[in-house]
């Protein structure tokens, strides 16, 4: 309830942290990757049969499921002729020993909102096509479910969300005496503009070295962290979520993220078709 920002108690030992830094100064990471290297990434769609659209992403040992449910509702007052997108994120208590049971905390809320901002305005989904007669609109409920957290949730969750939307089937709108309803026996694919798919790429900074796709223990050692979301050649979302950056670092991070974008985009290729 309180919006006041609490502190989680996530520790990494001083020794391990120094080890990560020392190794990185030789441009190696403790899991053997180079700074610009992304972990193995796997994207599967249609994994949740009860959802209207779904996807599962494994980024190293990070594991995220996205499920889309389509509903009917009121459009936003300032966009009466558009569908509605609601992105929520839940980091399951399964995901790490630090996760508390309860409503989403500030980190989960930030995760959902960064993914949401990437999708909302880039043109990947044409919300104008999701208006429904009678002043109603389709509501796309995208639920991001983190099952195991080994770092870099934003990049993984963004992939899961865009893949699940690609996989989504819109139930038909049915009228009967009591009003307008959704008929799940008659579905058609949600149209998405594949070329405009938003891709989020996070860049971490440890001891002056910029790197892609940080793991959980790297995240505990960060001096800075920033996420860029790209759609085509545009930046459509940005979130500095730890530390600080000089202007030169910012430019370097942007270029590094742009290169990382390729890696994630290619993992989506089969899924987007």
């Amino acid at each position: 309830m309180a919006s006041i920002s609490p502190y989680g108690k996530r520790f990494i030992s001083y020794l391990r942290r120094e080890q990560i830094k020392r190794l990185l100064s030789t441009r190696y990471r403790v899991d053997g990757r180079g700074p610009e290297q992304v972990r193995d990434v796997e994207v599967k769609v249609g994994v949740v049969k009860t959802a209207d659209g779904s996807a599962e992403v494994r980024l190293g040992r990070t594991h995220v499921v996205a499920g889309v449910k389509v509903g009917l509702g009121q459009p936003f007052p300032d966009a009466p002729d558009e569908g509605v997108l609601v992105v929520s994120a839940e980091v399951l208590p399964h995901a790490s020993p630090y996760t508390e049971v309860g409503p989403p905390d500030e980190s989960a809320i930030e995760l959902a909102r960064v993914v949401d901002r990437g999708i909302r305005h880039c043109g990947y989904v044409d919300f104008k096509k999701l208006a429904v007669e009678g002043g109603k609109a389709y509501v796309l409920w995208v639920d991001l479910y983190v099952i195991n957290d080994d770092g870099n949730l934003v990049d993984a969750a963004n992939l899961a969300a865009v893949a699940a939307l690609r996989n989504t089937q819109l139930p038909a709108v049915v009228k009967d005496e009591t009003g307008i309803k959704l008929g799940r026996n008659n579905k058609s694919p949600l149209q998405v503009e594949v070329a405009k798919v938003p891709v989020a790429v996070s860049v971490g900074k440890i001891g002056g070295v910029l790197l892609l796709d940080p793991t959980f223990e790297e995240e505990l050692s960060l001096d800075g962290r920033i996420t860029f979301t790209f759609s085509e050649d545009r930046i459509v979302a940005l979130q500095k979520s730890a530390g600080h950056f000089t202007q030169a670092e910012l430019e370097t991070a942007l270029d590094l993220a742009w290169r990382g974008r390729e890696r994630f985009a290619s993992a989506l290729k089969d899924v987007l078709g």
Partner: protein
Amino acid sequence: MKKSPVPLLQNGLRADGRAPDQMREVNMAVGVVSNADGSAVVSYGLTTAVAAVYGPREAHPRHLALPDRGIMRVRYHMAPFSTKDERKSPTPSRREIEISKVLREALEPAVVLEQYPRSRIDVFIEILQADGSTRVASLTAASLALADAGIYMRDLVIGVSVGLVDNTVVLDLNGLEDQYGEGDLPVGYMPNLKRFTLLQLDGAWTRDKFLEAIGLAVKGAEYVYQKARDALKNRYMSIAEEIYGR
């Protein structure tokens, strides 16, 4: 009871083609959540439950700790996209709170909590897909996750449901049978100790049908138990391989 859109039983077979005493396809895997101390995913047909165990760890807040034994917390929760029709609100419903309680009380008799004074064992269960029998699939998943975490156990608790369909006792209700059948009887059973740790019931049952159903539940649980043992064996084998090589 409402009328089902399709016959639930015809020529001795159920709507999905099963015999009355037949489980749906049962799948299990252990060690599926790498950060957890123990974990498992169990599916009975479409119904899928993933369980993770953290602990034993220090009981917190400390005034809940017990000097002579550990405490166990259990959370059963359904994903918003796990149900067939509308999105389910993620806020825990009264139903989910009740099931969390009966699952805890179904697992407690199997766990040697006396081994863990001042400690806490957390069991988290999430339903990813729901097509009937979610609480009993949860029970099996939780047992496997506890075993995977190396928690001392007297036995596994295996969950199966039995139900009444056209006045016939059937095993492992799916969502359709749960909604339109005449009775639902979820059971938690320890196959070695031969004890029931979960029993609930809905519908209207004669004494005879009830006892017949209990008998069928035991058979179902014994069947699932073999699968559970295999899943644990596979997990140990793969750990052994990791450690000692092939």
